[in-house]
């Protein structure tokens, strides 16, 4: 246990983490982008039109993966926030803080693509039903976490305060998930797991879902590295790196 903690401490040091993350990025970025293009071309060109919704249903291939990411990122952020609060590991603090803007983007995409799908299918861009409202609240929670992190000057204290807000906001996640069961909503229920989806429609959805996870991983590492440069800017390793990096 002692050796394990020491290993975590050495490998989890900001400098080591920065280098490791830099080496990992291409391994997530390249398959992520390839899968994303594959899934989108599959979904737009090769998947057949829906017998009820025609071609409008093709929005599902980006809407549902985005919605999954909006929840998945929040859960990941909560794990990092809990680790940050319990063990006060700097890299965990920055990982949690790096999650928030990515989660906000996927939540905004969920709302926008859902709105653009709702107009032709339900006749309205927006309805204050439980699923949509709770997803909008999720966006506000993400923005509040980002705002709180920016508002406190001491970066360590800011990260811990925002991490606490992350854990408070966790209560909204089951509400979003079960909203279609608890309330009668305009939004349809669980499609992918309950109803049988044709493989030619399920595959592009799953491919994009995997691709968005890889893109999230890429972006998380990029953003954590960026936060490490900012918070460690007075440390020797950042200064050495800044000097050697070609000013282009």
């Amino acid at each position, binding site marked *: 246990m002692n050796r394990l903690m020491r290993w975590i401490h050495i490998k989890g040091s900001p400098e080591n983490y920065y280098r490791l993350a830099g080496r990992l990025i291409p391994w997530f*970025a390249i398959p992520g982008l390839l899968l*994303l293009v594959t899934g*989108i071309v599959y979904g*737009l*060109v090769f998947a057949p*039109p829906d017998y009820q919704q*025609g*071609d*409008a249903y*093709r*929005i599902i291939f*980006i*809407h549902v993966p*985005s919605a999954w990411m909006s929840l998945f990122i929040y859960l990941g952020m909560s794990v990092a926030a809990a680790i940050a609060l319990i063990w006060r590991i700097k890299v965990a603090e920055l990982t949690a803080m790096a999650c928030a803007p*990515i989660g906000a*983007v996927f939540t*905004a*995409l969920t709302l*926008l*693509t859902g709105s*653009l*799908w709702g*107009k*032709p299918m339900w006749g309205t861009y927006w309805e204050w039903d439980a699923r949509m409202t709770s997803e909008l609240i999720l966006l506000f929670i993400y923005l509040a976490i980002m705002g709180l992190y920016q508002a406190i000057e001491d970066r360590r204290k800011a990260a811990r305060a925002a991490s606490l807000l992350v854990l408070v906001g966790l209560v909204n996640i089951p509400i979003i998930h079960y909203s279609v069961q608890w309330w009668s909503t305009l939004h349809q229920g669980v499609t992918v797991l309950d109803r049988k989806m044709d493989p030619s429609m399920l595959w592009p959805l799953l491919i994009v879902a995997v691709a968005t996870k890889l*893109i999230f991983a*890429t*972006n998380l590492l*990029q*953003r954590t*590295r*960026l936060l490490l*440069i*900012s918070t460690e*800017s007075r440390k020797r390793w*950042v*200064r050495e*790196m*800044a*000097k050697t*990096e070609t*000013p*282009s």
Partner: protein
Amino acid sequence: MSLSEFLNMGGYGFFVWWSYGLFAIAILWLLLLPRIQKRFRLKEVRQQIALEQLREQRAGKSSISGSQSSSPESD
């Protein structure tokens, strides 16, 4: 299937292409912005180093000439 048919998306082209367009822009923005920001942050660090070196030089000179001492830490 012709290209115009494909772009028309059975009459839902507006909704489908706006969705995919926003999605593409968001993903590109997510992935490209940190690359640009990293360059700026490292430039800031280099400027900070240069500034500190300049202060050290000034402090060194002033102590040799015996004129009014300025401490680099004070400002």
